[in-house]
């Protein structure tokens, strides 16, 4: 059966139209980042003090939405998942990268997407953060031979949590949703303990109801997924070793 999506790869739309459609998609992303409060460096940094746990909750919600949509559209046969670029795992470089990135986030108050969005709202500290970010990227690229071996080490392919855990993909999706919900409740609890709120929000009850309903929908979809075997979501026999960036020579079109 021919699937419709991804539109750019099934030939439904041209590659130049695909490029231009990235602008409205980015628009939605930037619009949402602002309303999440992510253009404010204080809100991002406060996550690390449990003063405002909005950041992890937004991230959990975004991941759950993307995850349920991606695997759900594959399940119903709308999206050909073999044409979706799956991120590869390089375990240790990503762990070390995450640690340094976390340091950068609490010291600098942003990550690149939120800083760019914040520049668009006029924030000077975001401009300075991005200047630093560009310098850091440049240093990484110009001295690439120094850490190129480490960068390419621990390659595990597009290695997924369900493969690592040895359980079904649908069950893993359900598990991630439940961890997101549990994490959200736990972090709200810690925030209320450490930084008890002094103001009362008149909308509080409505907001709790709305968010509770959205979470219930996500958990329900997760339970439905858990009934399907992994093969219904993805056919695992394609290995793509093209993520390795050679340390010294670049052979365009050869390595990719």
């Amino acid at each position, binding site marked *: 059966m021919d699937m419709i999506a991804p539109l750019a790869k099934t030939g439904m739309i041209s590659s130049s139209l695909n490029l231009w459609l990235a602008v409205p998609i980015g628009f939605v992303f930037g619009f949402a980042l602002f309303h999440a409060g992510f253009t404010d460096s204080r809100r991002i940094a406060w996550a690390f003090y449990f003063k405002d746990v909005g950041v992890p909750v937004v991230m959990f919600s975004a991941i759950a939405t993307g995850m349920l949509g991606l695997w759900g559209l594959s399940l119903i046969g709308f999206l050909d998942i073999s044409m979706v670029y799956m991120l590869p795992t390089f375990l240790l470089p990503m762990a070390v990268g995450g*640690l340094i990135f976390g340091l950068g986030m609490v010291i600098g108050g942003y990550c690149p997407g939120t800083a760019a969005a914040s520049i668009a709202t006029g924030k000077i500290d975001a401009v300075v953060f991005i200047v630093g970010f560009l310098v850091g990227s440049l240093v990484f690229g110009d001295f690439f031979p120094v850490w190129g071996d480490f960068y390419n080490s621990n390659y595990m392919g597009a290695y997924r949590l369900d493969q690592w855990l040895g359980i079904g993909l649908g069950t893993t999706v359900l598990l991630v949703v439940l961890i997101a919900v549990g994490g959200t409740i736990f972090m709200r609890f810690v925030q209320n303990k450490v930084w008890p709120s002094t103001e009362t929000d008149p909308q509080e009850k409505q907001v709790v109801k709305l968010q509770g309903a959205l979470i219930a929908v996500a958990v329900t979809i997760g339970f439905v997924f858990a009934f399907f075997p992994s093969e219904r979501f993805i056919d695992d026999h394609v290995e793509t070793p093209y993520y390795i960036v050679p340390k010294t020579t670049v052979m365009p079109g050869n390595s990719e």
Partner: protein
Amino acid sequence: MKFGTRWPPVPAGILIGISMLLAFVVAGRGIGASGAMTRFVAWVQHGLFPAATEQSAYFGKYFADGAHPLNDYVVFLLVGLLIGSFVAAWLSGELRVEVLRGPRSSIAYRLVLALAGGVLAGFAARLARGCTSGQGLVGGAELSVGAWVFLMCIFVGGWMAAWFVRKQWI
């Protein structure tokens, strides 16, 4: 119910998730921000040192076969992100030139740390092959083991340093 400027976290996160899902469905790839910035520095350096940049092990691939580094999906995405955030702030009356910082922080202290944090995050995003969005959110949705390790390590790293820079924020 009116949300106002700052939406509750779950609906805000869902809209970010929808933008990611749109990219999956339309382009067969995720969203991201750091890739465009890497291409930007490669482009600037290429203007100053064209030969060296084209031969660079890391940046060279952006110039393969006469390609322009800024003619790429992630750059169009970033342009849209800038417009989207600008429009959202404008509609909310929140366009203001200012330096955001905690009540005990001076402007100079904040800006020095913003620069230092940016350098660290810029280096780390390249090492991890993506940032919070391109690696963390997208990889998280794809159930990538590396992305989940990356996300957890971000919070570990952040908590480790939080105490030392607390005067900047709280």
